[in-house]
């Protein structure tokens, strides 16, 4: 137990004497330097342990032998030690990071650094206002000086701007201090209360607060800070962005009790403004450090806003600590990590960061930092956001809520874009410098702490069920065994999926079972196709398992939180999987942007949710609560994004097409169903209430539009995977409409469609993967005539398209029959018409696909290709068997569905043997099958009998205008197949939604461009901004 004042004493002593020590060699001075920094960390860690674990009460340290109002006192409590622990740790680690620099540069740099850290400690601990000013100046001056640790023109001018801006800010702070003293007669925070101030005396508080607030770099008075971030040595910037900000935000926290409510509101608003605008401007930024600067500024805005807002509302200590603390740690660690990494990479344009690929471990650490900074689970920022949304919704602060979510989205956008550049941009020959251990060590330590805090929150704060950890366990586990051969890993993955399903899934007749089959069993089967890979590279199976477990966990999630984190896990994994595709840079960013936007809608929706009993999966308990309409709408939007409904569909073609070929089946057949699952979840609650607004009626229309638009879009694709992607959009439209019917037959139809779509899409995509694997192209017109070479794949696709199109006797017809019956029964006649149209259009694209690939004339270059590899064929066969089985015996599936849906609706169909009778019509799948077989067999036999003399000729043996055509290439009619159709109806497929989103993105971009004009680079303008900002805030507050 060391008195924390020793931190200050020892740092000062060492600081004063360092230059003397240095006479004895740099080794000695460095030893002293690092020992003191380490000592600080240990002292604070010890205290933190006492406060946090042992529950020791807050420590007050008087100086000069007098107690508080007379002398300056320091205070160390739980919060102080928490902040200081991180600050000192970051200080130590950054010092280690900079060791090379410190070995070379003047001794002054060590002194400055040491005293900077001392200043932070003092600033956080002191309770005296003027003493704060002194420590603030210590902090500032040492920071100013350290900005030129690497001296160049840029860092010098940035440092100068920093100084004058900091000078102005501290001048106002000082003015504030003196007026607070004047009005309250005290300088010690313990003895000042907000009651001391008359109305006009509040200006003292205002000056105090604004001085500190300016130091937090609020938009737009923060140009100087950004210049500093851009130009200063990374190790130092890490300190500025992280440690300094932490200290300053803590000062702000300390003076919070003085601020009247009006201030709190305005400052909250300003914090949020900073958050959204800094992130907005960030999207135009290409310099990594300046980009991080925008992000830092934004995060500080968010942190400040959360502090102000929770104080204003008087939110319980735990929650506000979780929010502010979460944002704090998240920003603190992630930002330090990123700045350190930026210092190692040394590229001044995020587009050149592909060199990082030469150093995979560092790339992974980089990715982790980005994920953390984006506020994704399990990292602390996520939990903060989760609680924050609840608080904001609870207090009806909708503007703030939407601003924060938009800001988060923008931030995630530029971070993920950066990651995309890093992983996908062309890698030039240049190699990275050898990374010093001293540089990588701090990064590793912080990443470990990041994970530790994340898990700590997961286990101790939320005590989540153990299976929620599985996605993370999966990715870690797979990472650990990444040295194994990929076939082995594939088998391990299958085993893992099987075990997961076996242990976690209830086998009762419920919706859970159905989706369990799709997500778990389906995944297990589809993984088989990946065995074909020779080398998967690192992470592939980890991502895959993470996604699968994430999807699986959705079904058994026991709370909204669990649901949402798994939703995010799944999304992250999906993003990483997509990103593995060769040309997936753009599609991946589009995917993650849309997905996160959707996720934020869901998050906002959960904010509105009432509490739910914590017994069993939410799918079973959600019926007991009434979901507010707003939550319903928000969440449905989120779910629709995932299932690529009309309006949010523009991510699918790219994401599906550019993902690796054997990954696409996961997306189409399983991943997209998560949206459906979500909608069902909401619908279960919806049907139990008497809604005043028939939301699902409009959802039905949206489904219908998706179906028809998807079909049209698919028709005009040349790229087979894009075609199937749009087909998925269309098919999901069917599912959405049948779920939104909210009737017994509708739901049977919806679930039946879901299952069906899962099977045929999986097998078609796997078959296509095989074809692409062999031919090396996705352009259908570059293929042709492959039926001769790949007959099995042809059969799969054939069965698949029959099933999709709903032609009897295969299972697709059952789904169509159910769909139309339920639509007409419900009275959605026009929608039924739309679906007839859509299903007719689906013939166009399906035929186009099968014809262009398998029929017609073969290309020369495909003369020697073989059938798909066996690993692709196995899952296809399994799915074919599945489809045939439920086609032959539809009761295998209708009967259970009848039971499942019977839990929610009164049964409206009669099942008698194989005969299914609805109120409108009837259908006997079994008999249809037999009749079809009969009518097929009879002509076939006749033809075989009559036509015994048939001679089979080569594919190209055709006559065309009385002559043999030139070459098979020119004879294969595949390119632009439906040009006439395009003439007639192509207008409907004009990419209006695409252009809408283009406008949105361009608009955002130009808005960002507009706003960043304020950062003129002129130091004087920046001071002007500060003055104007202060004046503006003053008048907004109306002091």
């Amino acid at each position, binding site marked *: 137990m060391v008195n924390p004042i020793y931190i200050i004493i020892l740092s000062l002593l060492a600081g004063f004497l360092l230059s003397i020590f240095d006479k004895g060699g740099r080794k000695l001075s460095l030893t002293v330097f690092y020992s003191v920094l380490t000592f600080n960390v240990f002292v604070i860690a010890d205290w933190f342990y006492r406060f946090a674990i042992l529950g020791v009460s807050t420590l007050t340290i008087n100086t000069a032998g007098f107690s508080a109002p007379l002398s300056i006192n320091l205070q160390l409590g739980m919060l102080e030690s928490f902040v200081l622990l991180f600050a000192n740790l970051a200080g130590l680690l950054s010092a280690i990071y900079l060791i090379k620099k410190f070995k070379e540069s003047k001794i002054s740099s060590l002194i400055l650094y040491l005293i900077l850290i001392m200043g932070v400690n003092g600033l956080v601990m002191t309770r005296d206002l003027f003493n704060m000013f002194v420590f603030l100046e210590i902090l500032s001056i040492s920071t100013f000086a350290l900005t030129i640790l690497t001296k160049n023109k840029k860092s010098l001018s940035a440092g100068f701007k920093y100084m004058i801006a900091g000078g102005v800010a501290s001048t106002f702070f000082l003015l504030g201090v003196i007026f607070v003293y004047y009005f309250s007669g005290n300088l010690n925070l313990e003895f000042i209360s907000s009651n001391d101030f008359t109305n006009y005396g509040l200006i003292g508080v205002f000056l105090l607060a604004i001085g500190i607030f300016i130091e937090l770099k609020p938009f737009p008075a923060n140009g100087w800070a950004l210049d500093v971030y851009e130009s200063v040595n990374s190790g130092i910037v890490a300190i500025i962005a992280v440690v300094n900000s932490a200290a300053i935000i803590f000062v702000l926290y300390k003076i919070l009790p003085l601020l009247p409510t009006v201030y709190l509101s305005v400052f909250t608003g300003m914090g949020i403004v900073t958050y959204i605008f800094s992130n907005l401007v960030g999207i135009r930024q290409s310099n990594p450090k300046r980009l991080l600067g925008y992000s830092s500024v934004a995060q500080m805005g968010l942190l400040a806003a959360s502090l102000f807002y929770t104080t204003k509302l008087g939110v319980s200590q735990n929650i506000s600590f979780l929010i502010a603390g979460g944002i704090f740690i998240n920003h603190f660690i992630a930002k330090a990590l990123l700045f350190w990494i930026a210092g190692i990479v040394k590229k001044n344009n995020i587009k050149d960061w592909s060199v990082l690929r030469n150093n995979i471990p560092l790339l992974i650490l980089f990715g982790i930092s980005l994920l953390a900074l984006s506020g994704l689970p399990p990292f602390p920022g996520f939990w903060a956001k989760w609680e924050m949304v609840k608080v904001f919704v609870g207090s009806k602060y909708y503007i703030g809520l939407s601003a924060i979510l938009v800001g988060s989205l923008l931030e995630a956008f530029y971070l993920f874009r950066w990651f995309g550049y890093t992983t996908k941009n062309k890698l030039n020959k240049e190699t990275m410098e050898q990374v010093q251990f001293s540089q990588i060590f701090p990064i590793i330590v912080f990443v470990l702490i990041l994970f530790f805090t994340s898990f700590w929150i997961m286990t101790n704060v939320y005590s989540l069920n153990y299976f929620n950890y599985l996605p993370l366990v999966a990715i870690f586990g797979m990472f650990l065994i990444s040295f194994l051969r990929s076939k082995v890993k594939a088998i391990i993955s299958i085993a893992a999926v099987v075990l997961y399903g076996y242990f976690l899934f209830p086998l009762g007749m419920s919706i859970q079972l159905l989706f369990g089959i799709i997500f778990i069993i389906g995944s297990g089967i589809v993984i088989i196709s990946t065995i074909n890979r020779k080398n998967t590279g690192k992470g592939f199976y980890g991502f895959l398992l993470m996604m699968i477990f994430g999807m699986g966990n959705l079904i058994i999630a026991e709370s909204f939180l669990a649901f949402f984190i798994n939703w995010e896990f799944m999304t992250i994994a999906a993003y990483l999987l997509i990103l593995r595709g060769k040309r997936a840079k753009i599609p991946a960013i589009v995917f993650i942007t849309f997905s996160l936007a959707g996720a934020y809608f869901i998050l906002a929706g959960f904010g509105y949710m009432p509490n739910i009993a914590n017994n069993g999966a939410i799918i079973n308990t959600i019926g007991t609560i009434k979901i507010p309409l707003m939550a319903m709408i928000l969440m449905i939007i989120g779910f629709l994004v995932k299932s690529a409904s009309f309006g949010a569909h523009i991510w699918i073609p790219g994401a599906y097409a550019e993902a690796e070929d054997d990954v696409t089946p996961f997306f189409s057949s399983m991943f997209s169903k998560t949206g459906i699952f979500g909608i069902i979840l909401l619908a279960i609650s919806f049907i139990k209430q008497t809604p005043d607004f028939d939301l699902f009626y409009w959802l039905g229309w949206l489904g219908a539009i998706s179906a028809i638009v998807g079909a049209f879009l698919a028709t005009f694709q040349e790229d087979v995977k894009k075609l199937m992607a749009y087909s998925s959009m269309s098919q999901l439209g069917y599912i959405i409409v049948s779920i939104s019917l909210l009737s017994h037959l509708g739901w049977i139809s919806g679930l039946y469609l879901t299952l069906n779509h899962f099977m045929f899409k999986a097998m078609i995509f796997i078959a296509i993967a095989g074809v692409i694997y062999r031919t090396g192209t996705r352009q259908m017109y570059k293929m042709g005539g492959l039926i001769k070479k790949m007959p099995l794949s042809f059969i799969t696709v054939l069965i698949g398209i029959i099933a999709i199109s709903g032609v009897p006797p295969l299972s697709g017809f059952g789904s169509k029959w159910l769909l139309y019956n339920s639509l007409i029964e419900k009275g959605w006649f026009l929608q039924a018409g739309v679906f007839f149209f859509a299903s007719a259009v689906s013939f166009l694209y399906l035929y186009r696909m099968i014809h262009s690939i398998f029929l017609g004339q073969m290309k020369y270059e495909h003369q020697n290709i073989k059938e798909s590899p066996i690993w692709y064929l196995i899952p296809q066969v399994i799915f074919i068997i599945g489809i045939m089985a439920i086609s032959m015996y539809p009761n295998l599936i209708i009967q259970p569905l009848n039971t499942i849906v019977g839990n929610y609706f009164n049964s409206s169909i009669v099942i008698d043997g194989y005969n299914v009778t609805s109120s409108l019509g009837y259908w006997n799948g079994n008999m249809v099958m037999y009749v079809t077989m009969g*009518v097929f067999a009879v002509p076939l036999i006749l033809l075989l009998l009559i036509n015994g003399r048939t001679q089979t000729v080569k594919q190209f043996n055709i006559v065309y205008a009385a002559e043999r055509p030139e070459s098979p290439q020119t004879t294969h009619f595949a390119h632009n197949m439906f040009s006439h159709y395009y003439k007639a109806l192509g207008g409907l497929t004009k990419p209006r939604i695409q252009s809408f989103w283009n406008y949105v993105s361009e608009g955002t971009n130009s808005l960002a461009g507009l706003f960043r004009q304020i950062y003129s680079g002129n130091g004087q303008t920046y001071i002007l901004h500060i003055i104007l900002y202060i004046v503006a805030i003053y008048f907004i507050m109306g002091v």
Partner: protein
Amino acid sequence: MDIMIKIFYAIISIIVATVYGLTLGGIVRKIYARAHGRFGPPVWQPFLDIIKTHGKRVSISHGIMFYLGPVFRFAGGLGTYLFIPVIFGSAIFSNFSIAGDLLLVMYFIFFGQLGMALGAGEGGHPYSPIGIARGLSQMTSFEVPFALSVIAIAIQYNTLNITTIVAAQQGGITNWTLFTNPLAVIAAMISLLGMNMHSPFSIVLAPQEIPIGPPIEMNSSFLATLQTNRGLFAAAKLVLFMNLYFGGATNLLIMVIKTFLIYMFSVFVGAAFPRFRPEQSMRFFLKWPTIIGIVAIIFIAYF
């Protein structure tokens, strides 16, 4: 035992329908010829054609799917026909309508088309996919008014069961859908024009001396199978329309008369109008007939 009788009846029904359908085809050709001022082939010419093509010495196949194409097509025709109850109250002509309702019939039509498209596709001749592309796209458009019309009927009779629909139209001409729901009938009749692929919607086959649409590579027995199916399929469609819109038939004679008249309607329209280009026909179907269909639904559902 039951099923054997059923099959036996079905065979009778099929033969009758095929012969009838082929004869109709012959008659139509005669009418066309007369309208053009020619003498024209004899009425039994389709039968002769089938026999002749069967008898071809050379039979060329391009592969399995090519081989199965006509089989699919004919199976489609057979199936479609078999799922329709032809004559109300007749055991022989009730076929396998117990297997499914109107929706089954509508979707089974696709069965043959899809198979044929596949077979023709394997033929490797560029004209086949061109024809198919046209055919499919034309189909998507004429299906719309037809589907709307069917929905209107389903609303009207509150069933999709063909037999029930026919039963509801018994007892006088005024009970026919034609009079109870004229808009739906108009929409459906227009789409029938497309379905029959007669002029002006005959771009799919583009009949010259020989058809140069999908069946271009088809020869000998393959072509014969297709020709046979043409007769049967035509009959099936006509019967379906008769059942849905014109009160069905209680005996064979009424069926023949009604279907003949329905057929003549499309023939006369075809003789009077020149051929549309594909996009023209699509626009056509998606304009007025569709609107009529929608109006029919709205009318029947909400008034």
